[in-house]
């Protein structure tokens, strides 16, 4: 019996259904409670059907756009910037990890500061970045990159450091050049760790991109979000953005997972 339950627990479809159901149930129970106790429940926790209806309703909420249209158009800009920031952040993170691995000296010097850069809030960072790049949209991409490179850097560095000594010895014997050691041993060995870094960084990049939208109030999900938060626009726009960004998060991490299996055939179980 127990055995059977464990088995069901391991079925893929069951897991998906279970989690979706669990969340739906919790959400709806809370929504009912909220609906009974609050005057304007949709600001706190609307029913899911209301959100779904809002998504498909053609009512104009911003200019000539319906809620879904507004979210999707703004999302286009934001996700593009987020994506560029993520790519840039991924590359920077990887390069930093590489540099820190190559030079112990540099690594020890730089590492604490990489972490510190993370701690400078966008508010302080933005004017400086803006004065360097001179363009608000470039600044947005750069800041998104800054906010997402660190997980990639730490995880990749950890990956580099976890390569067994024997593997080095082997390359040492063949007097492999540094770049060969990196190319043939360190980088492939660090790939799984690099991918953890990417998985953590991806939602950060989306979040960061939404955050930097609000550097200036001229479009993007972040601006739409802050508008909907002001209640000047349908509050469902807000909920749509919440769900949309969570959805994007899941999709991205799935995509990264797929890329990971695609580039690591030795892990594929036929």
């Amino acid at each position, binding site marked *: 019996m127990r055995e059977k339950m464990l088995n069901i627990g391991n079925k893929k479809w069951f897991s998906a259904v279970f989690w979706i159901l669990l969340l739906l149930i919790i959400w709806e129970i809370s929504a009912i409670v909220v609906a009974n106790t609050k005057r304007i429940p949709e600001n706190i926790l609307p029913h899911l059907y209301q959100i779904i209806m809002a998504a498909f309703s053609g009512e104009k909420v911003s200019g000539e756009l319906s809620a879904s249209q507004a979210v999707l158009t703004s999302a286009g800009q934001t996700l593009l910037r987020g994506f560029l920031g993520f790519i840039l952040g991924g590359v920077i993170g990887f390069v930093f990890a590489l540099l820190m691995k190559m030079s112990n*000296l540099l690594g020890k010097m730089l590492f604490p500061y990489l972490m510190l850069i993370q701690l*400078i809030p966008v508010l302080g960072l933005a004017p400086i970045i803006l004065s360097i790049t001179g363009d608000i949209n470039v600044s947005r991409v750069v800041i998104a990159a800054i906010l997402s490179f*660190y997980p990639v850097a730490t995880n990749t560095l950890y990956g580099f450091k976890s390569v067994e000594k024997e593997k080095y010895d082997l390359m040492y014997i063949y007097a492999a050049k540094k770049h060969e050691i990196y190319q043939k041993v360190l980088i492939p060995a660090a790939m799984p760790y690099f991918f953890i870094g990417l998985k953590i960084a991806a939602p950060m990049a989306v979040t960061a991109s939404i*955050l930097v939208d609000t550097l200036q109030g001229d479009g993007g999900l972040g601006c739409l979000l802050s508008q909907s938060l002001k209640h000047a626009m349908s509050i469902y726009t807000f909920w749509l953005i919440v769900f949309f960004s969570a959805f994007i998060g899941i999709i991205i991490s799935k995509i990264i997972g797929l890329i990971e299996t695609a580039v690591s055939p030795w892990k594929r179980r036929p």
Partner: protein
Amino acid sequence: MEDKVVLKKMGRRKKLRERIRENPKWQKASTVILPLIFGIILVGLWQGQVLHRLFHTDTFTLPLLDKIGSIMADNKEKLLENTFSTLQVSLMGLVIGSILGYLMALLASFFPKFGQGGLAVIGAFASIPVVAMAPVFNNWTKDISRDASFRSMISKTIVVMLICAADMGLNAYKGLTNLKPYALDLMAIYASSRKKIFFKLRLPNSIPYVFSALKVSVPASIMTAIVSEYFAEYITGVGRQIRENIVLAQYSTAWAYIATACLIGIFAYAILMILQSIFLKRYH
């Protein structure tokens, strides 16, 4: 002839350098000394306004360090009060979130497919931007206390918690499942219970991964605390002060708080490093 002498000399010098480099005491000291050296160089570049020229910026947007320092000294108490508030939120969120993330990873290691769904759920929560999460939790926590400072703290903590949980979940899951070949077989032979497998094998195997997660979540928790302070009902915290000052174009003061955030970061990071050197002593 001369070439040879030079070569020999270089050889010897290199040996000395190598000897220094391989000295375990230097190894330990260098993790502190090197960043310090870099810090001093940075201070020089900053104070000498080289950074400003490099970044095409002015001492207004990037105030000089003595200015920042004097503001910090002038406002010690206010600074401390806000620091404490931010630290409290980020620390609590970090601890609870990391534990939650670890438990989720544990679940995922027991029931892989089932638990991975859970990890995905936490990951999805982490993808909701902090700017959207903060007001939601602000609303949801309104009924838990009449004390605005308390409920604000809780709502900020929840946001930090979710962010840290996602990070820890992913890393810990790797740590709990990325085992040496045959290690699980060994445990199977002894018919170890899941509990035993966890305590004897998975847990110790995951420790390095836990630290690698913490290296990301420590700064992330502070960052998230700072951002969620913008939305909190009760006005307090380093992040809130930064925003208040930016609105009034008080960049020097804002930077004094930014510097404080960095100091919190350094402090937390140092503690993390000490813990790591204790916990990872046995891992070779």
